[in-house]
């Protein structure tokens, strides 16, 4: 087990060091993040006619901070490794070489992806903090100590999201292009969990969303940072672990099925 972990840690470290060379390129992505947050600050400033208003239990500051945090996770954890690279490996036949290497292909991709966001996400977190504090002021009621519980939730949320996206990419074993399915998954996460907290939706839908990855990927971590409670934290962590186990099982299942299909077709 420790030998196996060591193998993936080496992959993780090498990608991490490689990505340190591209910090300037990562920083160029700040432009899009800044503009997206700027648009949402303007939008919520317009909708909250009175700064003291509450919408779905959120003050204006909390609502803007919520969007900034979810967008931070969205931008900080995006990478083509779990989407385009997997699809092109499968479509181009490169998978035939990679599956013979002394690692499991899907875990190799996850280790590589983790190495990428380990640089990106903290950079975006720093930018989000600076932007938030200067443009909307500090988050009301925020205690830095709660980050000790919120940060693991963010990390688990990013990993759960990666596992599900990887499952979708693995569909390339059967269909030529899995990108359209990624768009739909991304839009569900974006519209129903990133742009608004789920409390803003009607009650019946809120219950439904709690059963989907939306709850674990973006809503949960952002909610904990904006409005921390120990019970909520325990609930979100438990849901994330359940989703991670289910996602990993699904990922190994799809990969196993896909690889057999590859064998039948002769690669």
């Amino acid at each position: 087990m420790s030998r196996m972990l060591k193998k993936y840690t080496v992959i993780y470290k090498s990608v991490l060091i490689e990505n340190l060379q591209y910090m300037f390129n990562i920083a160029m992505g700040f432009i899009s993040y800044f503009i997206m947050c700027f648009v949402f600050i303007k939008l919520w400033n317009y909708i909250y006619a009175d700064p003291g208003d509450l919408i779905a239990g959120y003050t204006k500051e909390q609502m803007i901070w919520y969007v900034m945090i979810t967008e931070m996770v969205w931008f900080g954890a995006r990478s083509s490794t779990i989407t385009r690279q997997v699809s092109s490996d499968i479509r181009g036949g490169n998978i035939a070489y990679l599956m013979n290497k002394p690692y499991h292909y899907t875990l190799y991709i996850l280790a590589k992806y983790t190495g990428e966001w380990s640089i990106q996400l903290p950079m975006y977190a720093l930018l989000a903090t600076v932007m938030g504090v200067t443009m909307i002021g500090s988050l009301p009621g925020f205690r830095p100590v709660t980050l000790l519980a919120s940060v693991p939730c963010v990390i688990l949320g990013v990993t759960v999201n990666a596992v599900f996206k990887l499952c979708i990419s693995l569909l390339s074993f059967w269909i030529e292009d899995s990108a359209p399915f990624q768009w739909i998954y991304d839009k569900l996460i974006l519209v129903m969990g990133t742009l608004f907290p789920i409390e803003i939706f009607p009650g019946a839908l809120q219950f439904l969303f709690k059963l989907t990855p939306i709850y674990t990927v973006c809503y949960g971590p952002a909610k904990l940072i904006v409005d921390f409670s120990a019970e909520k934290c325990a609930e979100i962590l438990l849901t994330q672990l359940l989703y991670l186990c289910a996602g990993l099982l699904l990922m190994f299942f799809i990969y196993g099925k896909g690889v057999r299909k590859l064998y039948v077709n002769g690669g």
Partner: protein
Amino acid sequence: MLTAVKNQIRVCVFSVKYNIMREMLNKVTFLTNILFMMLNNGAFIIQWLILFRLKEEIGGYSIHQVMLLWGLSASSYGLSHILFARVFSLPEMIVNGKLDCYLVLPKNVLLSVMTSATSTSAIGDFLYGFLVICIFCFRIDRLLLFSLFTITGALIITSFSLLMGSLSFWFVRAEKFSMHMTNVMVSFATYPDGIFKGGTRFLLYLVIPVGLAIYHPVHIMTSFDVGMFFTVIGYTGLLTAAAITVFYLGLRRYSSGNLMESGRM
């Protein structure tokens, strides 16, 4: 002269036609890309339904006007990526020296580069725009104006991207910058201009041309104004001319990548 222009247009039409035919080789993938892109865009209707539950108007726009804004943004972006998709990857081509094969073609270099690729999913964007206007705010005169502004919008988006992409002739790391600037334009294009004030409005109308590509046309379709109409047409011509000039100025600085590749990459 007229024959040369006619020939060039024919070449461009054939180029786009064969790009689409190549994409259609796998019909299931082709159709999935188009349909899912329409669904993908449709997901944002939920966002606006939620926002309009909170407030009756946003930035002076009703839900129908927001749909008009979304429709025009989608169809302009779509048309631009159907006809001139290669413009959006121009910086990589310049940096990697991949323009060589176009320089030896006996036709216009810029048009040959621009029409050498088509994005299948953009067909979904293009159709989505027209579907939205037919469902939410259909009127014959509005549909005609919408079609015209889809063309001007596509030309403005393409020209802006060409301008930003041409920066790579002078600056080594401009490719990321130009990509993000094009994304910035799309980000602003799907939100009402009424929520932006002061300096931002100046930026949206004069620096990032989203004001004249999308906002002005939406205002014209809501209540027609001759002055605004000709401003949009004139601006489209000016920006297109500026983008072409900058591209050819930059092309003088281009150095070959010594790549032996065909024009269809």
